[in-house]
């Protein structure tokens, strides 16, 4: 019988592509619709932040951390400040910690809104979920603008606390935003998680088992989607997270659908945390004074934060000088991509896009 020989055919899901969430390229070798081999090409947005940081003082590096993962600048600032505070042994006043928790959780809500909207858009829901999620995200960005003056790269946290105190009308405004959120999440739940076509498109796509996820050091919704109950806010509480009561959502079979519902559930938990933090907001100073040209003692420190995309770590080595000797960021999006090839090979091109959407990458963080 003559065997039909179809030659494989390389398609660039390239840097300019509506659903690669930034300048990121997958060179997919495709046989018909089936993906045989997927190779990642990245580095288009590499600004060598780690080299620049070695030339700036500790406080001057804070704006860099905003720009690595431009969708969650508050968590990035928090991670870096925790690392330097651990290195220099600086105590943060309780009000500073509470404000940091509120800001980090608000940032998680905004980032997950973006992630869920973009993911639904990748499965083809023609911009409707994106518009809904961006409508809510706008309210949170207004809160950021009210406190830190900027919407996206807030540069709000300082070593030893936060830059400015909360404005008077922040707490009522924040409560108003938070009250609407559970209703909005149920609305999204109705539109997407119970939508047969959405389930058909995302169930069983890009499956990772728990052992695979742990071995590939994935983190965040990727890890929790595969059934591993691991959340830095619970395992290694920082900024007083142990005072707040919240749960960790855990998926079962580690496919794109589970990662989606884990993110949706995490938004509900973040709302709970913010409510508790707003209720128990302590008074007092919001920052301990730290000299501008801070010279922490010689040594190294690794601090980690549960960012929206996973475990966001900062490894800072100081040689006693004004600028860090070595500044390394543990980028969750970058490491979450290590299994991309195993997840996409075998599926169709459409599945590869859905898998990429479920990993929820931010190219600024991948290329640093």
């Amino acid at each position, binding site marked *: *019988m003559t065997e*039909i020989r*179809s030659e494989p055919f390389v398609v660039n899901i390239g840097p300019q592509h509506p659903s690669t969430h930034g300048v990121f390229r997958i060179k997919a070798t495709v046989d018909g619709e089936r993906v045989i081999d997927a190779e990642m090409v990245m580095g288009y947005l590499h600004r060598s932040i780690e080299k620049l940081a070695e030339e700036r003082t500790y406080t001057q590096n804070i704006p860099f951390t905003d720009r690595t993962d431009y969708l969650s600048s508050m968590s990035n600032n928090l991670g870096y400040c925790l690392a330097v505070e651990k290195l220099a042994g600086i105590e943060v006043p309780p009000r500073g910690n509470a404000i940091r928790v509120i800001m980090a959780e608000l940032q998680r809500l905004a980032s997950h809104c973006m992630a869920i909207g973009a993911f639904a858009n990748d499965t083809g829901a023609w911009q409707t979920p994106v518009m809904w999620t961006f409508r809510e995200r706008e309210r949170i960005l207004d809160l950021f603008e009210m406190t830190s003056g900027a919407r996206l790269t807030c540069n709000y946290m300082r070593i030893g606390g936060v830059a400015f105190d909360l404005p008077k009308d922040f707490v009522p405004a924040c409560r108003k935003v938070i009250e609407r959120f559970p209703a909005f999440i149920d609305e999204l739940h109705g539109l997407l998680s119970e939508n047969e076509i959405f389930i058909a498109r995302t169930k069983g796509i890009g499956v990772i088992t728990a052992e695979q996820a742990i071995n590939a050091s994935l983190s965040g919704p990727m890890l929790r989607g595969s059934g591993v109950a691991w959340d830095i806010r619970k395992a290694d509480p920082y900024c007083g997270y142990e005072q707040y009561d919240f749960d960790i959502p855990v998926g079962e079979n580690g496919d794109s659908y589970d990662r989606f519902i884990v993110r949706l559930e995490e938004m509900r938990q973040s709302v709970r945390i913010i409510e508790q933090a707003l209720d128990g907001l302590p008074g007092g100073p919001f920052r301990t004074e730290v000299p501008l040209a801070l010279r922490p003692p010689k040594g190294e420190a690794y601090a980690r934060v549960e960012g929206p995309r996973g475990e966001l770590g900062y490894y800072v080595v100081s040689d006693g000088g004004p600028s860090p000797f070595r500044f390394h960021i543990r980028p969750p999006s970058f490491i979450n991509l290590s299994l991309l090839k195993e997840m996409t090979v075998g599926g169709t091109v459409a599945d590869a896009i859905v898998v990429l959407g479920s990993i929820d990458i931010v190219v600024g963080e991948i290329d640093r």
Partner: protein
Amino acid sequence: MIEGTGPALAFWGLSALTLVSAGGVIVSRNLFHAVLFLVLAFIGIAGFFLLLSAEFLAMAQIVIYVGAIAVLMLYAIVLTPRAGRDNRETWMAVPALFVAVGLAAVLLFAIHDTDWAKSARAYVLSAGELGRELLGTWVLPFQLASVLLTAALVGAVMLVRSPEEERKEEEE
């Protein structure tokens, strides 16, 4: 044939279109253009059916030939590796010319020789009668054709089965 100046104009126009596109099929270098000219020829023939007021036949012609067969031919061309390259002059052209001229002669003789039974009244065949005719007197060829098509379908599926499925069959 409906009388009147309009249909006459239409007839000459359509025949010109069909002949030109048939010529185009042979002459065009690019295989893809050849198939497109063929589609144009099919549409021309459908126009002839309309002129003979056999609407159902014209519509069937477009649905079957343009809608299915031409599209499958396009698929075949797209999937074969050397599609789109020009079909070079092959030495086969000379004998092909003789065969073509011979065939044309036979056809012209046949057309000239038979006296076309000019039926008295303009016999308009409606789709309903066509259906009854097809399943009435001509039911045997109709069934044979359907059996043939099913066999072709099964053959096509067997042909395209990927090697793994074949191996799986051998193991069972």
